[in-house]
């Protein structure tokens, strides 16, 4: 099975590579553009069928770009005969730079914060304190858990947050009598809140980072600006999710008690972690005062934790390079599509201008939502964002609706809403693994949350337009 998948993933792009450019329905297609199409199709097939891990595909994209598209690639790929209609080779340094794009370093900063917080049990302690006011009623405890999960997933990875919250929840789940549906609600509330919470900040989840990559110049959004619409959106979606779960899976048990054994560490290093954590967030929110952008600020916790030995050499090796490289590959793919002119060419060869802009926005986010249910959210964003960015800038009648910003932001939210199957996201898989949530439970909640979430996303953007935010 795996080898059949692998074969398809390689054969189809190869075929595209060998077709003459005249056969493509894009006028004036250059050889370079054709190679980018082949690369894009390869990436799409690899990310959908997953014959190799998704981050491996990203690395493959970057290396193939260096060999086949760059000005320092293999000689035979560099237009040796000076043929007409060859197109422009890419700067190899630009391709390499995707590994250290500011977006990547913003995420690295986020990883440092999350890692230090976990190492010094800041997460456990905050969870304990935040859960207290919610009492013992299952419905209220669930709301508390959802809020904590959402807040944490804004700064930590959704998977790590889910893993932590499930381990807090597991002893309670085990005590539920068989047949009590409240168990399903609780287990499902965690991945739901983690997926939604990721939308809250630029570092909440990788699709947000990819979105930021395409919102540049006049469209650029600061950390604080993102949170100003991200947080209200998360709050509304959490409430909807909570109401839905408590209505569909009411608990028969009247009282539950979550026990989090943890106490604040009071060492000097721990204090540095607390201060740096709060300080970094404050800096992110006050860029208009001090002038440092979110990317520059992200390096401050990195420097603090490295110089103070809070993050050691060994911890460095545990950084999720796979996530960073997955995003790098996406950026590299976007770079090739933009610089070769392919993204614009493709968009121009489809008469988007004759479509209603409402259809374009609704269609693109619906497509994102569907794809995100079946494949990695980040890979979905990697594939769609470059096209949407080109669509937003070249289709004139979209400008009245906020152009690129509207398209990219709705699609970004849609990418995080893909959660109707255990395979949709790692948090979903973990919750499914508890045995308390069946696939049909998950699908029922996921589909409703996905569609309602899209509508709320459109409303959010509409309101942002009204107040001239975008």
């Amino acid at each position: 099975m795996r080898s059949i998948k692998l074969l398809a993933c390689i054969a189809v792009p190869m075929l595209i590579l060998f077709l003459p450019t005249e056969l493509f329905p894009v006028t004036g297609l250059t050889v370079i553009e054709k190679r980018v199409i082949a690369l894009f199709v390869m990436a799409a097939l690899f990310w959908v069928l997953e014959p190799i891990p998704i981050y491996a595909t990203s690395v493959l994209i970057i290396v193939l770009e260096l060999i086949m598209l760059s000005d320092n690639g293999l000689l035979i790929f560099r237009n040796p005969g000076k043929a007409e209609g060859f197109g422009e080779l890419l700067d190899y340094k630009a391709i390499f730079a995707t590994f250290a794009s500011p977006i990547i370093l913003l995420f690295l900063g986020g990883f440092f914060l999350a890692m230090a917080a976990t190492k010094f049990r800041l997460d456990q302690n905050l969870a304990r304190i935040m859960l207290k006011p919610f009492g013992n009623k299952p419905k209220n405890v669930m709301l508390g858990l959802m809020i904590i999960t959402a807040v944490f997933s804004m700064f930590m990875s959704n998977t790590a947050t889910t893993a932590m919250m499930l381990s807090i929840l597991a002893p309670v789940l085990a005590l539920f009598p068989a047949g009590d549906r409240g168990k399903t609600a609780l287990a499902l509330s965690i991945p739901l809140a983690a997926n939604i919470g990721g939308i809250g900040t630029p570092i909440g989840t990788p699709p947000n980072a990819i979105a930021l990559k395409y919102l540049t110049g006049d469209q650029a959004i600061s950390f604080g600006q993102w949170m100003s619409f991200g947080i209200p959106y998360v709050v509304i979606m959490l409430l909807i999710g909570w109401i839905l779960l408590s209505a569909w899976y009411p608990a028969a048990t009247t009282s539950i008690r979550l026990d989090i054994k943890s106490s604040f560490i009071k060492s000097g290093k721990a204090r540095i972690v607390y201060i740096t954590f709060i300080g970094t967030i404050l800096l992110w929110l006050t860029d208009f005062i001090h002038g440092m952008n979110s990317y520059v600020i992200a390096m401050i916790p990195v420097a603090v934790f490295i110089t103070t030995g809070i993050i050691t050499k060994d911890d460095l090796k545990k950084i999720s390079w796979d996530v960073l490289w997955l995003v790098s590959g996406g950026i590299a793919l976007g770079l090739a599509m933009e610089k070769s002119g392919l993204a614009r060419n493709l968009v121009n060869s489809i008469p988007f201008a004759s479509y209603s802009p409402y259809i374009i926005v609704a269609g693109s986010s619906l497509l994102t939502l569907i794809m995100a249910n079946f494949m990695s959210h980040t890979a979905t964003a990697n594939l769609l964002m470059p096209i949407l960015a080109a669509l937003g800038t070249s289709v004139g009648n979209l400008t009245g609706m906020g152009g690129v910003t509207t398209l990219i932001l709705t699609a970004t939210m849609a990418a995080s809403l893909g959660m109707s199957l255990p395979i949709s996201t790692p948090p979903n898989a973990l919750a499914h693994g508890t045995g308390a949530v069946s696939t049909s439970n998950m699908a029922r909640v996921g589909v409703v949350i996905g569609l309602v979430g899209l509508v709320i996303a459109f409303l959010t953007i509409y309101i942002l337009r009204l107040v001239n935010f975008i």
Partner: protein
Amino acid sequence: MDQLYIVYVDDQREILSTLEKDLKLFEAHVRLEACESASEAMQLIDELDRAGDHLAVLISDHIMPGQSGIDFLTAINNDGRFFTTKKVLLTGQATHKDTILAINNARIEKYIEKPWKSKEFTESIQQLLTQFIVANGIDYTAYQAIVHQPTLWAYLQKNT
């Protein structure tokens, strides 16, 4: 290549068949191999190591003809190829002195007394297998159906 193995050693056929039943849960994801003596097991794990496979869990009885279980597990513990292998001693007849040797020299991860409770036994093995998977950087998603959830969560909390 990269196949995970659970190898169990006991000189009594009945014990081997009970173990086979208790380990059935792992069958679809992990290769299960029964051996009747330490020397047979040694030969098997030599081969699987050469094939690039992993000895994830090794379960051994203590009192057997030929090499004893504790001596065998000690040899495995000192063998660089199997540093991360999870070792389980399954016995009803180990003396106090044997037990000390098993902990200090063989560095066993689990001591299970005969007769054992099926459910507890499988959960222990699940736990050890999961620890082996995450400690060796093996992609856990392929084993999601059989991993010990809390062990996986504890790992993911710190590593994503």
